[in-house]
């Protein structure tokens, strides 16, 4: 190159290849990245109200397990999972709904009438009838469906269940 204002044919081709390649690469590259990360970028499905049955099904003072099955679609595959909650009717009108998942590592707890406790089979945790930790590794009481996550409608107990 003798004249610095002029770019040689060779250098022009080189530059054009790099710029052109870069532009095409980005145009294809970004959709490619979105394609790969798509499942991580999607928001999970929403919430639904689940009926647990009429109030009079539940004996006062005894936690009762209610199970239900929800299916969800992952990509092209449909899977059904079953979930459980404990319904505790404290009085005629006062109801508490606990999740049956242990707050330690999500094993499912059982109500053991003789001990008057929810017992977790995995690491021997126990929760009292109000869900408070009696012993074992769990860091907090059993989760509850309360406030806007639970209601009694026409005498039927309902919880707002989060999917995903």
């Amino acid at each position, binding site marked *: 190159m003798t004249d610095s204002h002029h770019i040689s044919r060779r250098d022009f081709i080189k530059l054009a290849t790099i710029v052109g390649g870069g532009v095409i690469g980005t145009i294809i590259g970004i959709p490619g990245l979105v*394609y790969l990360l798509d499942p991580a970028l999607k928001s999970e499905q929403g919430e639904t109200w689940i009926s647990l049955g009429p109030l009079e099904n539940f004996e006062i003072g005894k936690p009762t397990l209610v199970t239900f099955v929800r299916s969800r679609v992952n990509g092209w595959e449909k899977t059904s999972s079953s979930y459980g909650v404990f319904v505790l009717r404290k009085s005629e009108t006062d109801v508490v709904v606990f999740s049956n998942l242990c707050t330690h590592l999500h094993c499912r707890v059982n109500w053991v009438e003789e001990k008057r406790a929810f017992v977790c089979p995995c690491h021997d945790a126990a929760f009292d009838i109000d869900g408070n930790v009696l012993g074992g590794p769990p860091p907090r009481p059993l989760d509850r469906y309360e406030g806007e996550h639970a209601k009694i409608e026409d005498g039927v107990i309902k919880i707002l269940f989060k999917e995903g």
Partner: protein
Amino acid sequence: MWRKLYQWLEERLGLSDLYKSLLDRPEPKGNWWNTLGSASLFLFLMQGLTGIFLTVYYTPSPDHAYDSIQYIMTGVRFGWLIRGIHHWGASLMVLVVFIHMLRVFVTASYKYPRELTWLVGVGLLLLTLGMGFTGYLLPWNQKSYWATTVGTAIAGTAPFIGEFIMKALRGGSDLSALTLSRFFAAHIWILPGLLAALIGVHLYLIIKHGESAFPDKDD
């Protein structure tokens, strides 16, 4: 700093020699027809890349293949684009490779010392067709199922060993899950592996001999 790093690498890797012999080699006067080999190479790389992307969601089993492709087309953002490129690129690659071969034939570039380049090229054409044949079954829809039924049945008409070839292709006497998974293995591992190896030999020969000049009136 960069200059030093470059010097260090250059002394050990000989990058500029590599650059000279790969990209800065002398070429005879040619025209656009001479770019078709590079176009084939580009399409091969593009098919490789989009193919790898497709395997992120595609599942080679009879109960999921069709649904997983449906999901790529409608459930994954830009899935239609990735599959579209791979789908149309496949046909384009066969076309471009074939026209590349025609140009080599028309310019008589297959002659001494390039006979091996031509022979390796024949292998490349057959492998490219094989990629098309095996890839066509993977969506596991009616068209691909019956096309493969017919295609493998044609192989079955060869005398004496036809039946054996057909069974080897299908992984049994009928099209089944076994057919789908062996076509998948051929399509993503065996054929591309061979194709890459032969492309390597092809390119080595081209760089070794340089490109042929077009024949003129005296030839």
